[in-house]
């Protein structure tokens, strides 16, 4: 009888970040020479676990056993050396270089490059992997996204790792390209390689994998052979039913329509999205990563363009929307990434707080800032939102994540908006601050503020929202009223599998 060997074993892996237990006592094993799929909701801990495996994160507890011996990778290079390679979602190719230059980047064989020789070799490798349609002499920037993704995978496969981790490898592949990918995966498996396959696309997972592990909320739920699952049972395992008392008792205060979005479309991002928002309403947006929620909201706020469709504010059509126009019309936008576009980190808390509102605190003509008014406004916000900092003139980057988030919230609240878009307002902040932000959102809605709330935590949406819209693959899949929404249906709809 064939003894089953395990290339990788997780024993009680634990890893926390401020506000979340990303991995909580995770234990399972991955058989050598199999395709092992890893599925779970957004934030279930898949990516964190793979980063632990690849040496990017060091776990706080538990051990990783690789090829029978306990390992502790201190940095990604250690994992690479042991034969573990990861293909990330975001591509790591140099766009200005040609395909073959990218393939051999860092492992060129000659000091004086032999272009011809390299490209012949690259062509042989690509053909071998079924990618003959990619010309090695083409610039990578001229390839389609799908081709780049395949190239990245081929590059990793050619490095001959024992364990290849693929994080959403098919996210931008066409169906014929997915077939190429699957043939490649099957071939690697035949060669005895092990593949960890992370994907939101359950059909593909069921088609290609041998074993499947489901993670939920940082915990291991189940690991079993492929044949024991169907799409429906997988989703059932993934659903997170935790409902804390951390949400305020929702008192509905829905008024007249304030925002109407009709058939908004941007090629490749979202299509035909229509929804309305009322005064005092909290409208939630659920969906998987990449479903187009953020892109839709950015277009509504004028940060990104859209191809067609209309936006109406208080019944009046808005053309050529830009952030400054949106702001003038009473819209605010609390963005997803505090560091990327939420705050000016190198400036003070005060400057950040008043940034969108300076017109109110300065003379219109020359713009001399009234420091007294400005200071009073900032202090009032500090009080109202219970923001903790020692000095409003110190740089905002020294504040904790929760307090930074409150500063962003306060900078929009200062202008007394009628509509506030919030994209993942509680990401990466601790539980106490989360609860405070929930309370603030709830109270604001009672003061007639209309809120568009994007969240990847479905229980957050269920706890706060009057209505929840689920997006799937760029389209609005389903809309739920508060009473009819539940965690199972939200997730089914997010996977495009909801049947009413």
């Amino acid at each position, binding site marked *: 009888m064939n003894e089953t060997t395990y290339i990788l074993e997780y024993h009680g892996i634990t890893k926390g970040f401020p506000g979340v237990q990303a991995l909580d006592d995770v234990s399972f094993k991955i058989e050598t020479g199999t395709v092992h799929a890893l599925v779970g909701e957004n934030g279930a801990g898949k990516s964190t676990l793979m980063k632990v495996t690849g040496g990017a994160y060091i776990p706080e507890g538990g051990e990783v056993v690789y090829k029978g011996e306990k390992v502790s990778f201190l940095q990604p290079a250690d994992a690479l050396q042991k034969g573990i390679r990861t293909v990330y979602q975001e591509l790591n190719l140099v766009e200005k270089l040609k395909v073959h230059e990218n393939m051999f980047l860092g492992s060129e064989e000659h000091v004086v490059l032999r272009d011809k020789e390299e490209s012949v070799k690259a062509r042989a490798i690509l053909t071998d992997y079924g990618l003959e349609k990619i010309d090695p002499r083409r610039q990578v920037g001229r390839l389609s996204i799908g081709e780049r993704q395949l190239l990245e995978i081929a590059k990793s496969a050619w490095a001959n790792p024992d364990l290849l981790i693929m994080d959403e490898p098919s996210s931008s592949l066409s169906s014929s390209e997915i077939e190429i990918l699957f043939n490649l995966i099957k071939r690697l498996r035949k060669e005895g390689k092990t593949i960890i396959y992370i994907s939101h696309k359950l059909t593909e997972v069921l088609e290609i994998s041998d074993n499947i592990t489901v993670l939920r909320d940082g915990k291991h739920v189940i690991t079993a052979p492929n044949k024991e699952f169907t799409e429906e049972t997988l989703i059932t395992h993934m659903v997170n039913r935790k409902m804390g008392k951390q949400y305020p008792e929702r008192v509905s205060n829905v008024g007249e329509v304030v925002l109407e979005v009709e058939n908004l479309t941007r090629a490749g991002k979202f299509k035909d999205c229509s929804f309305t928002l009322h005064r005092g309403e909290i409208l939630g947006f659920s969906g998987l990563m990449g479903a187009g929620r953020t892109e839709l909201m950015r277009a509504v706020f004028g940060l990104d363009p859209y191809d067609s469709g209309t936006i109406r504010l208080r019944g009046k059509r808005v053309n050529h929307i830009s952030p400054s126009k949106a702001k003038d019309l009473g819209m605010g936008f609390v963005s997803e990434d505090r560091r990327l576009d939420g*705050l*000016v980190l190198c*400036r003070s808390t005060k400057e950040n707080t008043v940034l969108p509102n300076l017109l109110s605190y300065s003379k219109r003509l020359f713009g001399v800032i009234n420091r007294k008014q400005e200071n009073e406004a900032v202090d009032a916000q500090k009080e109202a939102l219970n923001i903790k900092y020692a000095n409003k003139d110190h740089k905002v980057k020294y504040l904790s994540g929760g307090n930074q988030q409150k500063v962003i919230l306060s900078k929009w609240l200062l202008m007394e908006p009628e509509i506030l878009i919030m994209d993942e307002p509680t990401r990466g902040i601790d539980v106490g601050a989360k609860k405070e932000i929930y309370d603030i959102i709830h109270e604001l809605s009672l003061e007639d503020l209309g809120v568009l709330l994007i969240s990847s935590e479905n229980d957050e949406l269920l706890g706060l929202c009057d209505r929840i819209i689920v997006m799937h693959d760029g389209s609005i899949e389903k809309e739920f009223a508060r009473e009819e929404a539940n965690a199972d249906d939200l997730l089914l709809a997010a996977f495009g599998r909801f049947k009413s």
Partner: protein
Amino acid sequence: MKSISVNSKKDRQLESLGTVLQKWGVFIGLILLMLFFSIKSRHFFSIPNFLNIARQTSITAIIAVGMTYVIIINGIDLSVGAIVGLAGVLCAVFITNLGMNPLLAIVLVLAVSAVIGLIIGATVAYIKIPPFIITLAMQQIVRGVAFVITSGYPVYLKNPLMNTIGRGFFLGIPTPVYIMAVIFIAGGFMLHRMRLGRYIYAVGGNIQTARLSGIKVERVIVIVYILIAVFCGISGVILSGRLSSGTPNAGTGFEMDVIAATILGGTSFAGGEGTVFGTLIGALLMGVLSNGLNIMNVDPYIQMIIKGFVIFLAVFLSVINSRKSEEK
């Protein structure tokens, strides 16, 4: 409550390490340098010499105020010296050759400078050509125009108003020093107390946050490049008054002194940080250094090497410093 007090202590330490040492470090450097020259030469420490330094410094220091804005918004302007040259030439041509009223001539010169700034700013903001490239090109174009207008020869400029601006005194202090003082005070007020100043910091610190906050970031960028070009125009007018001529190659190499003064003054090349006061100290440091080395009869070629080292040292220290505070 306890955590707040701990935090504030840490905050204060970080602030003191980062900004204070950077700002006051140059100030201390300036004082040490003055002390050194005072000991080495008895000609250095005297009121007439200090006035001389102030007058020499004023011409580049005025531009450095604009450069502070430009570097705060992550830009650079290499065309400053060329605009100084063209402004001087136009001033002389308008007054001497065309017999124009000198006040009108100056206004026209500043308007031409503003248009050059507008072209640069619009190219950077809307077409998104890197400022290094566009201002390098503009440097050539503007300098070339100055040479074409004058066929390469200086244009004589003798006019009472221009004389007062360039080489006059009021209450024993050179006129250019007054102009410099006005520009520093107004420029500092704008940066630290006015809406535009806040927007400049926000655009430089994080342009995406600024855009998302409803700031018209392109407009801010254009205004900044117009301002520096107008400051160049003012500097060119003063210089032509001082030289009593419009010289097409006046202002050559100014970009070096101006950028050095700004960086010495603690303006961060990473953008979003910097003060007009710091730039003033930086400009004075460069001025004192030249003056002192001249008094000590140091060979001009050696002076170049010394100046280069001073800039290197200042940038080196500021990078080390900011990295330290980053790691905390």
